[in-house]
């Protein structure tokens, strides 16, 4: 019954798209900048191909690995950007402002405005999924008690062993301050003070002799699998992929740091109409849910979260989704506006500390 309902809604939400597409017999292809790898394979399967089938518009992809360089020369029609980058590009006038009035309602009838998570709508970008930076541990490493809170990352007494942390301030500084019981809402105001940063480095100092620093997203998984470290920070999608193929890794969801992945259209894009059409298509309840079920990221719509059930391989996907209510209770939303402004200062400070000078 539920399946039939879903199908019906599917058809009805696709109809306007079909109607809009019909007067265009020879549409220009849509050029989408995408991140490649397994993630892009999923988008091909559940977004690009169905979009072409529904509208007749071909989707061509160009590789993208973050940053704003892609906006120079001949930019694509649509970019799958982090919100952080989209905000910076928007401020420089390199993205077109978006209107969100024509987004379809949620599958459960919730108006789009309320169906999307908070702050999904920014001036030039629409959030479609959330990914998380999390702490994970090697399930073979601990007997009895297992780590469950962000505090345990810094608790060498109960959970001894090496840690792998990303070689940037991001996430490390939030977690260090959270371990002092600072509530999520106060993190960034406190991180803005010298006193807050002093506390952060006090925590990191204690951890330093036990820390390996990683750069590529694949490293923390490898370090955990090889047993070189007992705890590591990393992207939830990477850990999920490892867990799905049987690695002895468990994610600590406490204080996961969520970031938005958005769709944005460059100002000089040539096929803006198709790009907007694609955004409407790709952010419907069913499409968002289909993407999330395959790569364990959080869909940007509440109604899509409600539909999540099984990975195509048959196991329950819900415990792996960062925005699942059970995982989401203590999530930190990364303040990308703050990072955009203090990045240089922060990195300099962090590198100084890494070079040996404590706080």
């Amino acid at each position, binding site marked *: 019954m539920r399946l039939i309902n879903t199908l019906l809604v599917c058809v009805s939400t696709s109809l306007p798209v079909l109607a809009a597409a019909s007067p265009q017999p020879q549409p220009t292809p849509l050029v989408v900048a995408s991140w490649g790898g397994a993630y892009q394979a999923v988008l091909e399967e559940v977004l690009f191909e169905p979009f072409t089938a529904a509208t007749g518009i071909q989707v061509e992809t160009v590789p993208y690995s973050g940053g704003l360089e892609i906006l120079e020369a001949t930019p694509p029609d649509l970019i799958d950007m982090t919100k952080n980058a989209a905000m910076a590009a928007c401020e420089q006038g390199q993205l077109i402002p978006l209107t969100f009035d024509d987004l379809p309602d949620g599958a459960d009838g919730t108006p789009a405005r309320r169906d999307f998570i908070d702050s999904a709508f920014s001036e030039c970008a629409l959030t479609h999924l959330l990914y998380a930076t999390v702490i994970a541990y090697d399930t073979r490493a601990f007997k009895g008690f297992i780590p469950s809170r962000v505090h345990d990352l810094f608790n060498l007494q109960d959970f001894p062993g090496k840690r792998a942390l990303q070689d940037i301030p991001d996430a490390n500084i939030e977690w260090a301050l959270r371990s002092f019981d600072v509530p999520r*809402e106060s993190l960034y105001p*406190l991180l*803005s*003070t010298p006193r*807050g940063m002093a506390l952060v480095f006090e925590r990191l100092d204690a951890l330093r002799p036990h820390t390996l620093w990683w750069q590529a997203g694949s490293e923390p998984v490898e370090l955990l699998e090889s047993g070189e470290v007992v705890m590591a920070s990393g992207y939830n999608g990477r850990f999920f992929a490892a867990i799905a193929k049987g690695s002895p890794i468990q994610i600590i969801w406490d204080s996961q740091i969520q970031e938005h992945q958005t769709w944005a259209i460059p100002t000089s894009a040539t096929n803006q109409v198709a790009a907007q059409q694609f955004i409407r298509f790709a952010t419907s309840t069913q499409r968002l849910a289909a993407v999330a079920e395959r790569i364990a990221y959080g869909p940007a719509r509440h109604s899509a979260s409600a539909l999540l059930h099984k990975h195509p391989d048959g196991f329950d996907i819900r415990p792996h989704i960062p925005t699942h209510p059970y995982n989401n209770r203590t999530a930190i939303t990364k303040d990308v506006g703050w990072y955009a402004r*203090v990045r240089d200062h922060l990195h300099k400070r962090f590198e100084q500390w890494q070079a040996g000078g404590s706080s």
Partner: protein
Amino acid sequence: MKATLNTLLRTSYVAGLGILIGLSAAVIANLFVAGIVWMNDSLLISPRSRMMASSEWLLLIATVMVPALGGLAVGIIRHFIDGKRFHGPPDIIATVQTRQGVPATQPGLLSGIASLLSLGSGASVGQYGPLVHLGGLLGSLWSRLFRMDISMGNIAIACGVAAAISTIFHAPIAGILFAQEVILRHFSLRALAPIAVASIVGYVAANTILPQPPLLQIESAEILHFWEFGLFLLLGMASALVAVAYMQSILWVGRCASAMPIPAITRPAFAGAALGVVALWFPEILGAGGENLRFALIDEAFSRWELAILLILKILATAWCLGMGFAGGVFSPALLIGSLFGALFGSLVATLSGVNSSAVVVYAVCGMVAVTAPVIGAPMTTVVIVFEMTGHYPLTIAALSSVALASLTTSRLFGRSLFDRQLHQRGIDLSGGRSKALLTAHTLQALINPNCLQLSPRASVKDAMLAMSQAQVAEAYLVDAAGHYLGTVHLHALIGAAPQDEARQYAPPDDLCLYSDTPLWESMQALREFVGERVPVIDRQYRLIGAVVESDVIRAYLDILADMRREEYAPN
């Protein structure tokens, strides 16, 4: 049937009143706080904006110039306020307690704007006083629009105040308590319903319209030993001394400021510039200091010396800003001062006892409420605020222990609160309770009967008796050509006297007379020993204005008490 319908209508009216005032006060409160946050971010006052600042020089200039220019604007606004002083919670309390007049609108609104500018430009003042005042003013404006009587007007004011507190602290029960504990100063069933509705609406609105994060969140605060409750009591007593020092500094700087050779209009600008210069080394003293309040709850955030220095600097900075003419409250600085002191106390306890005592957060929270409660005169409210904000029961009991002795100690050393002290300086004494305050607020003026028998001081006994019998009175007042009162002659004293004698000889030397501005309360005291019909009333130039009949004074007294009782006990 009709009676039931009437009751329902009346109840809906009361609920509607609560909703209306609660909603508007909540919106104003949230706008006010959002305005402060926005100004702090734009003017490089908030740590967040300071960290984002593009250059060091810009930051240095802003640190000194923003409070100075803010002070200049505040000084100019003050110049245009009737009475040249900012209004605040004491004005609301005075209106309600004396049942006279309404909170002044023009000074009220201008004070609100001045507070916003003070807080926005980083002055070390509180935001909750202005919000309480604005909430009360708003309630009063609504009551005037609906032409309510004084009692309902007072309840409307209390509704506005309750909604403001409830909105800001996300603490509806504390809002109700504050309105009853500080503003109305009695607990009545009649007032409870609309105040509770307003408070709840404030709470709902706080989470839906322009929501602001709550002041303080505490995730864990475990009390390890029961004997520590003894320390919390001790902390309460010690905090009382801090509270008294804080309040005395505010009053003292206020007194000194008027003696300074700086024109009143530029005084806040000067104060702001000086504050900014100190803030170059201690940026913690700028603004309400929410971040430092949070840090004070963390064990390792401050060294003991830093706690002590910051504690003293914050007391001085707040006294300096308020005394020199910035507009704002005393509540949020008190929270910070108290938590710094509590943290200092907690860390000393840990060192001296050598035992593993509870985390510093517990002591910081106890110190926070123990300093704040006596300053605003609201012990129960502050304890309930802790409970509603943290949902932590043992912590609330710890806070209660500290507040209990803090309030008692402070009331002995200083008085019920800074508000009451400020009102006392304006001649309104609330220390004797509500009835005394009311009776003190009303004077004899309205009771004076100008028709009384006046005689020349040279009138003979015969003339005097004749005049009295014609006027059918038993007393006459001797008045000279300039109208000055010289004495009273009583008919019974003249009977049997030689007719040609001057009547003046028979006037008793120590007869009672009252000034026309004598409060009812003192008149009643004076009349205790009085035997007679009427008491002569004079002005401050000793000219006779008329006389009051003793029974009129008693009637006025009873009427006032009856009004008060009606406000407290009458059904709606």
